[in-house]
């Protein structure tokens, strides 16, 4: 009985267990079924999606930065090029103690306080995950020393990069400008112009000068490389490659040697020089003194160097040729003479008797000539040769400001020349309208008097004056001054020449222009104000001196250069072209605080002409001589050549 129950219980128990086991088997099958469904979902239905993700994991598209285009002078001399070198770079996010790391690095490679400051500035402007340069242009020895110790410096690496170099450094700084790291403003501008994609991987962009103006030509087209990478981003192999296209080569109209000679001719003077070929507007030399070292700016200038440049009383960052605005002084007189002839205000033969001053009718105020006692009987020819102020006071008043404004603006005064550089100043050609707008005052006849000798409200830039002089030398047919001559395609070597057409024709009477040009040629002859400029020259030089006041003189006060602080001395101008009868070159010189156009500015122009026309290279001695001209009393320049203008 008992046994039977037990047996029955046993069978019941086995039955119960097997029932439960069936549930267990069902459960296990359910689990496997869920997995199977999941695999079908992931591997069959969603395969393409995950395939894409895996490819995106695996394939990294790397930009290949194109080489920036070269800049050459008209003879093929290199003015800007690239060279490869090594930089030491730090990714701040990968470094624990940045200061300590830099200190340790300083034991291996030379790191100056300047480098540290620049790095700090760079760091403030960038994200921590970007790799930032601490030192550029490592020597081979430094590279080797670091490579041996690399394991100690996670987040620090050596990279091969292309550097921009300007062989003429400060001599071409104001002309070429420089490239610099792309900042937020650059990025926004690129984005606006849909150029951002082409700048992937590019760190630098033209910031000023020709580097900025022709950025689109110089940059080139970025290439693309598809690389297989591992999870740490290391490249494993290259899958495909679209090579980059290098930027185009700029060939300038500048003559590097001429530029160099012009720059040296200034000696210790600050100032500007622009040389132009009047037949086509090609700029042959473009100097602004002093210059600065453009390479300082490429990777961000350190605060100290910036302060030094920015606070210097010499203002080396100021592009004087392009942006410097000065009173034209007497250099305006040939243009005034042409205006007087044009409006028949004066005939060539009509002469005045110069007592040494000019008075407006009904006024006792004396507008003084630079030469006390006056020049005697002066006709138009003589007025240019001796730079008679009294003649032009009267001419200006008789002609009236409206005529002066209309005529001079045809020569481009008061307007930008449109040269291929950004940031040009337009100078100032005063008019009734301008004065009303600026000062809410009507124009007085007294205002016109000083305009006649290039003082008063009127301002010009050296470039403007050079362009106007070129137009005059070219008998009234004007070309837009330009620095670029041709663009050479980096791939096809195809040359695109600039299309040169005259911009305007003032249509001057040949007799009038001939008179003014002859008078200008006489300026450099005995009796003229710049006789030393043509001493011993094998060609004729036409020119005009000028003086721009830095501080005003009181009535009755006499100008005495030796009593004035050097920086308050007058600026010296010389505008010129040669040969006088068939001009091949126009040279305009401004020597700041140079005092006398004939004494300081003209010899500088002469050296430029000598090289351009005769191939003559000045000896170091003759360069030094121009420096001594800084003290007119010591130079022994004859009284007749010294021109002083006071009003």
């Amino acid at each position, binding site marked *: 009985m008992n046994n039977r129950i037990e047996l029955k219980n046993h069978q019941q128990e086995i039955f119960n267990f097997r029932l439960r086991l069936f549930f267990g088997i069902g459960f296990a099958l359910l689990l496997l079924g869920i997995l199977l469904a999941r*695999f079908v979902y992931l591997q069959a239905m969603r395969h393409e999606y995950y395939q894409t993700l895996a490819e995106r994991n695996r394939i990294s598209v790397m930009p290949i930065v194109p080489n920036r285009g070269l800049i050459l002078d008209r003879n093929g001399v290199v003015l800007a090029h690239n060279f490869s070198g090594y930089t030491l770079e730090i990714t701040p996010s990968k470094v624990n103690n940045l200061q300590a790391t830099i200190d340790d690095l300083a034991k291996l490679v030379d790191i100056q306080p300047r480098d540290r400051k620049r790095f700090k500035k760079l760091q403030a402007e960038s994200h921590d995950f970007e790799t930032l340069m601490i030192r550029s242009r490592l020597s081979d020895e430094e590279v080797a020393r670091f490579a041996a110790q690399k394991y100690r410096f996670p987040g620090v690496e050596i990279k091969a990069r292309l550097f921009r170099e300007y062989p003429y450094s400060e001599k071409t700084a104001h002309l070429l400008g420089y490239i610099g790291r792309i900042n937020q403003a650059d990025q926004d501008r690129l984005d606006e112009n849909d150029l951002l994609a082409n700048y992937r991987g590019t760190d630098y962009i033209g910031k000023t000068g020709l580097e900025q103006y022709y950025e689109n030509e110089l940059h080139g087209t970025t290439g693309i490389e598809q690389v297989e990478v591992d999870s740490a981003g290391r490249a494993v192999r290259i899958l495909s490659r679209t090579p980059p296209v290098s930027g185009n080569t700029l060939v300038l109209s500048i003559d590097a040697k001429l530029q160099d000679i012009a720059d040296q001719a200034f000696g210790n003077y600050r100032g500007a020089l622009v040389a132009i070929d009047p037949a086509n507007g090609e700029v042959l030399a473009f100097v602004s003194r002093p210059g600065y070292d453009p390479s300082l700016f490429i990777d961000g200038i350190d605060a100290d160097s910036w302060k030094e440049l920015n606070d210097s009383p010499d203002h080396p960052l100021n592009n004087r040729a392009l942006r410097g605005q000065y009173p034209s002084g007497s250099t305006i007189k040939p243009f005034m003479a042409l205006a007087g002839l044009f409006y028949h205000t004066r005939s060539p033969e009509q002469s005045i008797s110069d007592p040494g001053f000019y008075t407006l009718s009904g006024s006792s105020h004396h507008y003084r000539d630079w030469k006390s006692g006056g020049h005697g009987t002066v006709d138009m020819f003589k007025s240019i040769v001796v730079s008679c102020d009294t003649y032009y006071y009267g001419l200006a008043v008789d002609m009236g400001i409206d005529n002066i404004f209309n005529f001079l603006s045809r020569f481009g005064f008061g307007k930008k020349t449109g040269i291929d550089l950004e940031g040009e100043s337009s100078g100032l050609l005063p008019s009734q309208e301008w004065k009303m707008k600026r000062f809410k005052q009507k124009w007085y006849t007294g205002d016109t008097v000083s305009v006649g000798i290039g003082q008063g409200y009127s301002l010009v830039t050296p470039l403007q004056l050079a362009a106007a002089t070129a137009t005059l030398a070219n008998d009234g047919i004007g070309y837009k001054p330009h620095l670029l001559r041709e663009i050479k395609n980096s791939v096809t070597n195809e040359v695109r020449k600039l299309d040169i057409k005259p911009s305007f024709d003032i249509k001057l009477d040949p007799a009038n222009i001939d008179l003014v040009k002859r008078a200008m040629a006489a300026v450099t002859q005995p009796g003229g104000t710049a006789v030393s400029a043509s001493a011993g020259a094998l060609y004729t030089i036409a020119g005009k001196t000028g003086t721009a006041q830095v501080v005003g003189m009181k009535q009755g006060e006499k100008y005495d250069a030796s009593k004035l602080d050097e920086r308050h001395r007058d600026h010296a101008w010389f505008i010129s072209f040669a040969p006088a009868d068939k001009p091949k070159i126009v040279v305009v010189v401004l020597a700041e605080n140079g005092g006398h156009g004939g004494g300081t500015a003209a010899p500088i122009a002469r050296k430029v002409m000598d090289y351009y026309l005769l191939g003559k290279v000045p000896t170091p001695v003759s360069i030094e001589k121009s420096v001594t001209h800084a003290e007119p009393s010591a130079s022994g320049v004859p009284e007749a050549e010294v021109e002083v203008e006071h009003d």
Partner: protein
Amino acid sequence: MTRRQLWRNLFGHLDLPLLAGMGLLMAASLLTLYSASDHNLERVMSQGLNILVAFICLWIVANLPLHYLMRAAVPIYVLGMLLLIGVALFGEISHGARRWLNIGVATIQPSELMKIGVPMMMAWYFEKYEASLTLKNYTIAALLLLLPVGLIARQPDLGTALLISASGFYVLFLAGLSWRVMGGLFVAAIASAPLMWSMLHDYQRHRIEMLFDPSQDALGKGYHTIQGMIAVGSGGILGKGFLNGTQTHLDFLPERTTDFIFAVYSEEFGLVGNLILLTMYCFVIARGFVITANASTYFTRLMAGSITLTFATYAFVNMGMVSGILPIVGVPLPLFSYGGTSMLTLLLGFGMLMSIQTHKKLVKS
């Protein structure tokens, strides 16, 4: 001794179908390990050694008569409990959890021992009260389960705690715990879920959150899940081919020789490979159920059923985790992942299955 006798003495207690299924899985695992370790033969040899050592243990256990196994249940459980208490009091902390105990010669992880100890103890208990099981017996068995699980969960090692809970639950289930009680427990578990959530550690919560939206932390905690799913999904129908998995060989897969080895297999062999793998697991599990069904005593039935179901659970949890349907818990793929400890524990379990299968005739007679 004749050669035939020698053969029977040496291999008579091994179950050949089970052995064949295991062998196929292990062979596939060594192949995958070769790829996952970037052609590192040393790694493969080392796993071969792990298998060899574990196999010797399997052989010993398979040759033990059943009453030995039963007798071992209580000592193993008591030892395991003492060690767990020791861990709680003196354990070493690593990665924020107190799991290891230094016993002078080596550091050991007692929770691993309890993967076998707990179901054995429970099966032993049910065998003892086989004749008349009441709710009281189930309650006591449940306590035998919850005590070590509680200690392990506190370490904290939620994955192991849950898996031991599962193996214990399977014993309770197979021992006939009434559906009504299970239903009640299920409702209670759902109700207490918010409370449990608040008791979890931050990183545990994070792992569960990641499951629902791995992309919210794609480079951090969600990285494992995303890369695993990418590997599996990009494998497609036929896979990228042996040694050609890009996720594997470009280092995107984390822990690809251990917990994520399935992603490597799946990427290189695709859906077809996965079907074959599932079939192999299915075969081993089916053989386990056959042994369970044929087991002669209550203890061995419960034990065999629990071992088989637990094995299936491990496989499901690991593959589910890699393919993104379960949270990341540190569970290796059974018989596949690199590692000696899990291999040893598994093969001890299979040794018991073989002993149960090959000793039952003796018990009957």
